[in-house]
């Protein structure tokens, strides 16, 4: 359930992981389901509570790898058939050495695709960080970004405070 563009949100900054986790359990119960969490390092507790789908990056990796494999074989076999030059009395299409090439291209394409997969999905590079981003988030604080209907904003802010947010930052405009 992705938020609709321009929907207002509040971000609660938490100093501690356990309070954050508590908040994450509480917020959905109160009907705030559009949540994003910011943390200095990945934490499986957070991922667990948010119940996200597994990342599609692996698909990129697979496709990239297979493309590489194909490219390797096509490039080697194709180029030799294009210029059928005999060397050392070996067959024009010499499978073993070409296999080496195919293997390398598999990995090359695989890695590049994986990285691209990450960039695309994680939406980097981005020009600017999200409004209300707090510099402590990369270091030792945790942030919960909660979207809400404009009429419930006040309620949300109150809730975040009670949950132990040290600071509450807001989205552009409202």
């Amino acid at each position, binding site marked *: 359930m992705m938020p609709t563009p321009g929907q207002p949100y509040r971000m609660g900054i938490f100093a501690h992981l356990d309070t954050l986790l508590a908040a994450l359990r509480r917020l959905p119960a109160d009907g705030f389901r559009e949540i994003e969490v910011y943390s200095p390092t990945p934490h499986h507790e957070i991922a667990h509570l948010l119940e996200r789908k597994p990342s599609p990056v692996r698909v990129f990796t697979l496709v990239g790898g297979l493309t590489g494999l194909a490219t390797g074989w096509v490039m080697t076999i194709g180029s030799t058939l294009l210029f059928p030059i005999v*060397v050392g009395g070996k067959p024009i299409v010499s499978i073993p050495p070409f296999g080496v090439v195919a293997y390398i291209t598999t990995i090359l394409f695989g890695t590049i695709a994986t990285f691209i997969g990450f960039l695309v999905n994680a939406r980097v590079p981005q020009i600017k960080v999200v409004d209300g981003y707090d510099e402590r988030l990369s270091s030792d604080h945790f942030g919960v970004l909660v979207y809400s209907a404009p009429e419930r904003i006040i309620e949300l802010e109150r809730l975040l405070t009670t949950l132990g947010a040290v600071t509450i930052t807001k989205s552009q405009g409202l």
Partner: protein
Amino acid sequence: MELQRRDFLKIIGATTVATTLPGCGIKQPKSLIPYVIPEESITPGKSVWYASVCQECPAGCGISVRVREGRAVKVEGNPLHPTNDGALCARGQAALQGLYNPDRVQHPMRKGEDGKWRAISWDEALKTFVDELQKIQKAGKGGDVVLLSGHVSGALEELLGTWIAAVGSKNHLRYEPFAHESLRKAQSVTFGVDAVPFYDFAAADTVIAFDADFLETWISPVEYAKGFTRHRGYTNGKRGTYLFVGPRLSMTASNADSWFSVNPGTEGVFALGMVRVILEEKKEKGVSAADALRISSMVSSFSPDAVSKRTGVPAEAIRQAALIFASSSSGLAVAGGTMVEGDSGVATIAAVNLLNYICGNIGKTVTFGPSSLSRLASYDELALLADQMNGEKVAALVMTDVNPVFDTPDGLDFARAMQRVPFIVSLSSFMSETSELANLILPTHTPLESWGDVEVREGVHGLMQPAMQPVFDTRMLGDLLLESGQKLGRTGNFPHRTMYDFVRARWMDLHKRLGGKSDFESFWVECLARGGYWEKSRSESHPSLSQNLNSATFEPLAGKETAKGGTFDLILYPSIAHYDGRGANRPWLQELPDPMAMNVWDSWLEIHPQDAAAAGINTGDVVQISSPYARFEIAAHVSTTVKPGAVAIPIGQGHTAYGRYANNVGRNPIDLLDPKPSERTGGLEWAGMKVEVVKRPYQTILATVSGSDVQHNRGIIQSVPLDELSKPGNSEADKEQALSMYPEQEYPHHRWGMTIDIDKCTGCSACVTACYAENNIPIVGKEEVNNGREMAWIRIERYFDEQSPVPRADFAPMLCQQCDDAPCETVCPVYAAYHTEEGLNGQVYNRCIGTRYCANNCPYKVRRFNWYEAEWVEPLNWQLNPDVTVRTKGVMEKCTFCVQRIVEGKNTARNEQRPVRDGEIVPACAQTCPAEAITFGDLKDRKSRVSELIAEEGKRDYRILEELNTRPAVTYLKAIKREIA
């Protein structure tokens, strides 16, 4: 083979005829750069062949010069010439570097008061020349003018004669450092004829050589090598025998079945020992009882044991040698060369004459007849001249292409003597130690630019014609003589204006003498095309034993200690590359590894490992060698090529004024010799000198191309005993098809291949120089050779036999093997090395990026990398073969089987709408090989000579490093070993 060869000859002949007539058009000097005035005779891209005669040594081989766009680019043996029959030695090949030598005298020069050379005009030069001589004539001193020339024959000899006569003098010395004095004296002593005999190696099935290096420099090496290997080469079960007697394992010696390393100076003793054995065994042939008796009385004191004591060879060996020689149907014993030309030379050679005589070889393999060599001045005449000069009895000295200052001992001090001569003129192509001392130099054409004819041996008329316009502002020697002669003598003596007219006139006479059936013009053109005229009948005398031959003749062999000086016997031998030193200014020859020592750009002292160990000498150490007459330092080369107690130095290096390539390279050992001529021989005592050798505390660089003297039992050179060959047995047994993971290669048209007969290869290295000339291979100089960067595409690998108790060496020409499954090709990342559809390992120079992986992976190490940009000195670069690219720095190169010749051959065939004939395409190496050891052809054609050789020589064919399964296209034929005593 014969048939195809003849075809090939016809082709050559034809081209020459077709092109000679217009060819004459460009003889007059017009412009140094061809093409300013395009000649109708010059077809771009088309080779023109001019037949001529080689003048690099007195042998007088026939050559045909390949001319492209008006420039001579290659010299090859003339296939129609009876002397060398298409082959040519390294020195002959290098004649081009004489023609294009950057250090030639390029214009007339006169020496000023300050002793500095000053360029002058030809008019001034000729005027001075004539005026000075006329002054002398006026002063009535015409008789005191001396003309000093090298070995000359034919037109030039006649002309020089008339010229010096015109001046009013009788003094014409035909001076050669190696004038065979003992050889000639010995003939007159034994047979009463003062002549250099003719030796017919082709007719001899048993040859025994006493020091004569007849495969290297002696008298007519190419002719001898041809005849020798043709007759000795293995053909259906038979093979000639060849023994060598002498103190040094020369290249010639290492070809022998057995080398008897006798003590220096005892060769004659050995011969007499053989004579005695033969007579005792009653094995003599065609000798009258009286003669037999006479001879046996002379040799009575030379019992095998006595001889064994003197020579250091076991008595049994001497008996064996004698019996083998006597039992041969036609034998030939030869003696000569510097190692014999000592004080006892006459006796030694006379002894060998006896050997020939009692075996009935005189008149069969040894014949006598007029030869220009017999007219050479002996050394004592030159010594006499030196005296006269010192006594100021010489008014003027006129020299042409001689260098006595270099090739006579310092002791004679010819240089000082020359300073007492008021007027010295040098008519030479090169500056030299001698020309340097002249007052006037009139630079002459090299033989390749000159008209002339040569008749070394009577009846063999070689015709010389210019192959191209003069390279420099020089004149033809003949023309100079005619022009000056007309002024000096009565014009009547000189009816001809130019050498060309003079030669033509001589040939008109010859034409008449031959009863001129056809008209002269066609005869003339024919001869120009053929390179001369060879008369069938030769006047040959069959002399009998002279009466004044007696035991006294052999007195010098009695064994009284005659040698002077120190502890080591000194052996000087003419270098195969530089002969008497005249080859030293040819960079190709400087970079040509010595066949035995494998060193380049240097001279060295060969010393036996025993003696070396005793004196703590290692190869590369500097040693001081001293005789009563000279002392100098030289690099030591520890080697078994000399026997203990002897040291050897090659002759030819140590120049000081012979151009950039020759100067300050090596030492001139001639200075060590006694300047006094030998009373017995009238010659210089080349042998018999004793020297001291002292180690010096420092070392020098002796640049060698050999990484190892032995093959570490790797079967690179394989041999088979003769008796095993003659045994019947199926040759296919040992030939199971090598297994391969790869598909068989398909060759739609040709599969070029080569066979190299190790048994025939003499190691003379003519192929190496031929390859340099054909394929634009750069020379790199001593330092780079020492760094292991010589560029030779074909090399002669010399390996000493590890098993054999007596030192013996074999030679394996090594070039790209054009492998079927070539390791070099696969590893090239950019396909610069690839396989052509005719089986060649192609190398695309401009695709090469220089990883050098191919060279690393080549088991034959025949790939050559361009470490630097090759430098081509003007005008040596005129010689570059336009059919072959010049490679840039950073690319790999290697033997191509002369692909340019293959292409040319295929084109010719296509134009004539016929298949390529076998033997019509010949790589440069195979073309020039005097031993006919290299055969090239199409392996797909079962009837090609090369296929036949592989098949017929079933038991002898092998491929080097066959176990690697690279499937080379080059098949080697095993050496044949025959153990004697």
